[in-house]
């Protein structure tokens, strides 16, 4: 008997035929739509227990407030925003079409450029409640999610980059807490005083400052912004990585490493723990470390990043844009509005024992953080920084954000390892970014 190679070939062909039409994607004729009814499907990033309980609570409250609606949640797991987007894209490729999906500020250009999103401008114009809502949301947060005049979504929660400092180490070194108008020179002097050899082996083991090596927002962006620069042009259509401003910011950080004031850069998760055990005196991040530090570790406070040639608040946010494929856009808008309602945003405030991990987008709610007594003492700074100071808008977040960020980080690695000069490194970075940042 012949071995049935031909049969196998046939079976292969059949198997391919089942794959190929879907691979080419987008024929979702089989969407036996259950529209007409009032149902919504929402994709969100399931980054941990807080995300799931939060989104469930929101969905349940929405259904309770709007009888007859049905909200289905699709949690999408991912190690970071990047894998979350990749997994949502895979879902969409397989023919799934959520009505809303959670995005971060870095994702605004991405969903807009891929023509996925239904801008909310028309709802903002005609919805009677909208005025009151947007009046209570800082302008920067709206601008941050505006792409070419289209408001991609209202922001429900956000984070601005601030400097965390260990108050006990400051006291021990006899240094006054930093003021909001401190300069780069003040900062460097402070960091130097906080750099020490505590165990007497002749090498430093306590460092003044470090930044996250694996993300640019809590990493280099505040420094770039305060040097008066940005990594992209204002229309986010071209890269500006080799400008004197960026060079100044990167040189400043590189110099901190050279002088031994900063350790070799490490990923953010390592920074948190090393901040708590006193190996790192200052680092930069949004509000999210608070959930890690509290309730055990309370010896910290926050301050604005020091001023360089200018000061600009660097921030990021999240929201639930309505997708174009939604069959119930009006209901989806109601849901988006609901995510910024007082009832929902209250949960981002938290309590001193169980603090929230981001800042509510509504000013009135955000101001309750310090009233409830959630540390740090300077918590009012979070919202003031976006209300009272200029902001870095637009985000340097082109449509291909993941590629953009990983390219920037890759070149920074070489610069901070001392293997490339700042200007050569930035020149190479710029050359590569120019093919990624386009319109």
């Amino acid at each position, binding site marked *: 008997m012949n071995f049935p190679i031909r049969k196998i070939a046939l079976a292969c062909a059949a198997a391919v035929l089942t794959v190929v039409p879907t691979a080419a994607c987008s024929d979702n004729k089989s969407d036996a739509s259950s529209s007409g009814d009032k149902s919504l499907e929402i994709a969100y990033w399931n980054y941990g227990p807080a995300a799931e309980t939060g989104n469930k609570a929101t969905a349940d409250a929405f259904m309770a407030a709007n009888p007859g609606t049905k909200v289905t949640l699709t949690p999408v797991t991912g190690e970071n925003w990047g894998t979350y987007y990749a997994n949502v894209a895979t879902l969409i490729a397989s023919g799934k079409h959520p009505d809303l999906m959670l995005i971060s500020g870095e994702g605004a250009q991405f969903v807009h450029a891929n023509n996925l999103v239904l801008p909310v401008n028309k709802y903002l114009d005609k919805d009677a409640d909208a005025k009151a809502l947007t009046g209570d949301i800082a302008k920067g947060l709206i601008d941050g999610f505006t792409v070419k005049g289209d408001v991609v979504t209202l922001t429900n929660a956000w984070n601005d980059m601030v400097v965390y400092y260990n108050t006990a180490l400051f006291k021990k070194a006899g240094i006054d807490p930093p003021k909001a108008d401190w300069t780069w020179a003040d900062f460097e002097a402070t960091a130097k005083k906080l750099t020490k050899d505590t165990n007497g082996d002749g090498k430093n*083991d306590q460092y003044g400052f470090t930044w996250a090596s694996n993300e640019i927002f809590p990493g280099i962006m505040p420094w770039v912004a305060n040097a008066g620069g940005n990594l992209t042009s204002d229309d986010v259509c071209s890269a500006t990585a080799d400008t004197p401003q960026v060079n100044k910011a990167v040189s400043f950080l590189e110099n901190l490493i050279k002088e031994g004031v900063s350790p070799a850069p490490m990923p953010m998760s390592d920074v948190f723990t090393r901040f708590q055990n006193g190996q790192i005196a200052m680092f930069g991040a949004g509000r999210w470390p608070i959930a890690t530090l509290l309730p055990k570790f309370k010896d910290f406070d926050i301050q604005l990043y020091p001023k360089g040639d200018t000061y600009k608040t660097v921030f990021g946010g999240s929201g639930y844009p309505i997708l174009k494929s939604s069959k119930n856009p009006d209901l989806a808008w109601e849901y988006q509005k609901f995510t910024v309602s007082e009832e929902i945003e209250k949960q981002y405030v938290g309590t001193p024992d169980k603090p929230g991990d981001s800042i509510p987008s509504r000013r009135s709610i955000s101001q309750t953080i310090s009233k409830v007594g959630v540390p740090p003492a300077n918590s009012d700074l979070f919202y003031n920084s976006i209300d009272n100071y200029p902001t870095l808008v637009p985000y340097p977040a082109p449509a291909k954000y993941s590629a953009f960020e990983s390219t920037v980080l890759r070149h920074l690695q070489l610069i901070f390892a001392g293997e490339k000069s700042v200007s050569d490194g930035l020149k190479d970075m710029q050359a590569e970014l120019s093919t990624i940042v386009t319109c």
Partner: protein
Amino acid sequence: MSRILARIATFAILVVAALAIAAPFLWIFRGAFSASDAELYKLPPTFSPGNLTAGNFGKVTDQVPYFRFFVNSLIVSTTITAAQIITCATAAYAFARLKFRGKNVLFAVVIGSLMIPIQVTIVPLFLVMSKLELTNTLWALILPGIFSGFGIFLLRQHFLALPAELEEAARIDGAGHLRTFVRVILPLSGPSIATLGILCFTYWWNDLLLPLVMISDTDRQTLPVGLVLLAGRFSTGSLGTIAAGIAMAIVPVLIVFIAAQRYIVQSIASSGLKL
């Protein structure tokens, strides 16, 4: 005299290697019982017995449905392991002992299947699963694991090394292929099947890529995803809690290993290999 020296050298090498390889885990177990994350990164390493706690384990089960994940992981890993042993052993027998057309081509295809990284086939695989309407079910994690070019290759090598005389004796007694396989080959293959079992079980126990992509409902996730959830957004999760989660995930694999290892030892003692 030189024999004693050789034995000392043997043990010295083994002890150093074992320490170098296993010591890093003491840190994980220490972390799992540590009341303070800050202490874990201290230099020189400090250790205060007063700072020990079992509380981290409670935090793991508070934060994620750990036992649900555990059961899912167990179902996925055991099913794949059992299915893989069957598909690989039968296929390996065919490749090692049967004569048929296209054998070499087919074997080349088996080896070739190892060479395409899952990271690139994952999207088409997801589309296949979605066509079969199996995404977001445990089947989406089990089915892709059943075929293993590695397992076929491993068992084929071991079958080839078995003395052919044993089978010939069985054949003369009138046994067909199936009986030879079940009665002669399998009993002699304990060590290699146990090896495949251990390797397969641990691999799928730790697999993160498939569940991240295939599964969305938390109730159907597996342990490695649980660890990602414990790490949280921007890795803000507590080190002690993550270490406790890791420690709890290691234990079942160790049990499988210890059970299988006993089997390796016994099967040699009782096999007909010594003639």
